């Protein structure tokens, strides 16, 4: 029987320098390209296209029969009007006037009265609005409009649900 030659145990050392170089390069890349996105929020809305506003009591309800030529009854609508300052104004596009129905209730700096008016209108069980349309002047800035939407979406309907169904109509110029 052949005797196996015994050898002194050798330390096998891996050269990690190259791997470390590569790892540092990767790390540098990730550090340089790392840009945490800002924490954004959102207001969720359900926005069907605006429908007929005028309510005709003697008319029929909207249906799927296209051959029926009788007048459609329309939906009971709460109209909010948001007017903007013209381009010649020092603050162009800022909300100049907000009206609920025919009543002027607020401007961009005084929005609390809009909330009160909307609360009163929406909790009135007799009114029973089917849709809410916001008429917006074409120059109104998104920032000002979002303040109005913010107030609207905080309102609750008579059934306790939060208002989230809105439609927009564009008014010519500032309104």
């Amino acid at each position, binding site marked *: 029987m052949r005797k196996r030659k015994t050898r002194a145990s050798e330390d096998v050392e891996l050269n990690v320098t190259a791997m470390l170089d590569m790892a540092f390069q990767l790390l540098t890349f990730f550090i340089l390209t790392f*840009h945490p996105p800002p924490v954004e929020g959102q*207001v969720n809305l359900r926005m069907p296209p605006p429908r007929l506003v005028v309510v005709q009591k003697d008319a029929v309800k909207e249906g799927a029969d296209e051959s029926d030529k009788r007048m459609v009854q329309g939906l009971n609508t709460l109209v909010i009007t948001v007017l903007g300052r013209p381009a010649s104004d020092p603050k162009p596009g800022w909300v100049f006037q907000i009206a609920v129905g025919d009543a002027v209730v607020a401007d961009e700096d005084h929005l609390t009265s809009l909330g009160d008016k909307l609360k009163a209108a929406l909790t009135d069980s007799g009114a029973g609005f089917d849709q809410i349309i916001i008429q917006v002047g074409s120059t109104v800035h998104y920032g000002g409009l979002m*303040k109005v939407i913010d107030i609207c979406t905080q309102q609750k309907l008579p059934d306790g649900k939060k208002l989230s169904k809105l439609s927009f109509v564009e008014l010519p110029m500032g309104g």
Partner: protein
Amino acid sequence: MATMQHAAKAEPNLTPLLDMVFQLITFFMLVINFKSASLDLSLQLPVVGSARPVEGEEELLILNINKDGDLRITGTLEKNIEGYIAKEAQADFLAARAKNPKMLFGEDLPTMVVIRADKATPFNKLNRVIVACQKNGYRKFAMKAMARVRTS
């Protein structure tokens, strides 16, 4: 005469350093967010107190609109707004139909349109995009805003 000595090799143990670097790389790889590529971070979003963080993972159509009314998709200017939205709606309809074969053309699309508009965007420019979305069957919208003022 000085005695000859073997040159002593001073090799630092790089293993813990390598471990730490790999841990850092793993961290950065996990937190990297490719979705942010679709966001135009130059836009100044309005500040709205009731804006809530995004909940759930729905199908989203992200539209960045700057103050001139230009639509930017992953950094590229999209000139044909209506055409782009119609094309996306068609793709979303096919995707929705694959999940729900009973879905008919013209029904409301389940995709949520995320509108990221600059706070100085005039309503007529914004409404052009909203109307184009509504015409193509989108009904669910998310209006993006900051919950508080950005400090940086």
